[in-house]
């Protein structure tokens, strides 16, 4: 119940954020999508014991957060929400990987290093995906997908699913509310009511689908979802992509923290 309400807020929050008008929001959706994909790939391409060289990748989310003026807290909360699952799997590392090494007299387990590596990667990847949607929005993303020649059927379906999630979740919330009012002491829905409860919902869903489609046809829909002209890709958009991609490439090739570290420690010596 509170779960479903929270989900609704989350969707709506990201949706609202996507309607801001900052420099990042104005960048072409396709470029943002590509940047994100490259970023994710680079993040996950680091080995399981690598932490140091991963760190420069923090620059990307930080910059986007700042430039797009996004609130940090709600998005990071979402990341934490996913964390238990990752921790659940990651925690097995210290259990199975007992090898240790010494660093300045301290014993450090390799398993723990792997665990932290996973943890950081989780944070970075999840944040990157949320940032993409929070700066691009679903319509923008759909436009980008169409430019990538993803079949219109799929894109259309994606958009409709997205749109109807809010409507249906509200319906579910109302049904659950009615249920809990008459079954005050239960957690979850009792199995006797499973089928009919979900069944009612599905019948309504079917009828709604029918009506939605009819409403679309009545307004001249013939199969192509027109979201209005997306501007052409500008040089600036390309520069954005190129800039980030080269940064990612550099972090991938050179261990920047090590470089900085050697410089500093070298100076100290």
């Amino acid at each position: 119940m509170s779960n479903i309400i929270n989900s609704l807020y989350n969707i709506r929050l990201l949706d609202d954020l996507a309607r801001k008008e900052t420099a990042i929001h104005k960048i072409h959706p396709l470029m943002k999508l590509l940047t994100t994909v490259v970023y994710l790939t680079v993040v996950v391409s680091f080995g399981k014991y690598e932490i140091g060289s991963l760190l420069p990748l923090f620059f990307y989310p930080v910059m986007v957060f700042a430039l797009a003026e996004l609130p940090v807290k709600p998005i990071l909360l979402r990341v934490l929400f996913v964390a238990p699952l990752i921790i659940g799997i990651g925690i097995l590392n210290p259990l199975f990987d007992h090898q240790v090494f010494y660093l300045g007299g301290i014993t450090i387990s390799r398993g723990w290093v792997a665990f932290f590596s996973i943890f950081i990667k989780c944070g970075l990847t999840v944040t990157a995906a949320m940032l993409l949607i929070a700066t691009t929005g679903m319509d923008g993303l759909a436009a980008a997908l169409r430019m990538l020649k993803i079949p219109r059927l799929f894109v259309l379906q994606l958009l409709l699913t997205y749109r109807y999630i809010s409507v249906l979740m509200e319906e579910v919330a109302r049904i659950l509310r009615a249920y809990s009012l008459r079954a005050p002491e239960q957690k979850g829905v009792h199995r006797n009511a499973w089928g009919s409860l979900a069944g009612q919902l599905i019948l309504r869903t079917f009828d709604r689908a029918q009506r939605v489609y009819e409403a679309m046809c009545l307004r001249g829909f013939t199969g192509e979802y027109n979201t209005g002209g997306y501007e052409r890709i500008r040089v600036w958009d390309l520069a954005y992509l190129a800039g980030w991609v080269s940064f990612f490439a550099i972090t991938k090739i050179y261990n920047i923290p090590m470089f900085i570290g050697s410089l500093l420690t070298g100076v100290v010596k």
Partner: protein
Amino acid sequence: MHMADALISPVVGGVMWAATAGVAAYSIKKIQNDLDEKKIPLMGVMGAFIFATQMINFSIPGTGSSGHLGGGLILSALLGPYEGFLTMASILTIQALFFADGGLLALGCNVFNLGFFSCFIAYPLIYKRIIQKGYSTQRIFGAAMLAAIIGLQLGAFGVVLETLFSGKTELPFGPFVALMQPIHLAIGVVEGLVTSAIVAFVWKARPEIIEKASFGVAIGNISIKKVVTGLAIIAIITGGVFSWFASVNSDGLEWSMFKTAGIEELEAPDGIHQTMSAIQSETAFLPDYGFKAPENEQEQGAVEREESWPAVSAGTSVAGLVGGAMTLAMAALAGMIIRLVKRRKKRLAA
């Protein structure tokens, strides 16, 4: 049982993406031929329905815990397998984007695990076979239960394999399987119960919906065979290309030697050739060497334990720690400066 980005390697992610894209493309083609345009919004709304029902936690009798609907099977039963698969794909896409369930790179894996097995294996080979003899409440129950359990078992096994191949986390095969499969047996039972309850309900209330879905679309054994063959080919080719790429760049031991030597060597270029190959291998999506050539698997496994661990010397680690801290501090600083500047600009404008 969503896979997360952080747990997969680019190779596994890429291969599964390719496989999923292949199945999706095939499904789209199938649907376009069928061209019942009304199905598009139906798929959209059904996707939303699955999404919404996943928020309903059903109490699992006797255990005090609760589970929710996976969705693949019910989508196939109500819409048909191709539509079901595509719908599942958009649900997972939205979950990845908005809820950080799974991730964009892992999307291929997730769609495959949750969509392919239930829509293209469990549905046609189990559910449809049983239901073909005619609908009845018992048969719906049996078919849904069996199909749901098997679909989820396959999916869970997929998760195990993908995780192992990715090698991001230290999980011995045995215990992992022993952990995953029973959990998903329980989830499968719930899924089966829910699916059969819903399908039985819809069948009683609006039989035309269900009967149309299963008999309207011709999903004979031939097309299934085609899908599976196509998939196998895609998987073999992509996997092959990647592994070939891997072995060319770093022939077995050499590769691991290179890794062991660590990064310092990179900064001391011994001629253009070496640098190039170093860059290439570092950028070739293969640090974890997910796809091992089968013949030297043993050896490879043994070597890998040693290899991906960077050489540790006190000097480099201190430098690494200092540098890491500096990098993070710089990132934070940059962010704060931008915020400050923006805020000041706004204040000036106001």
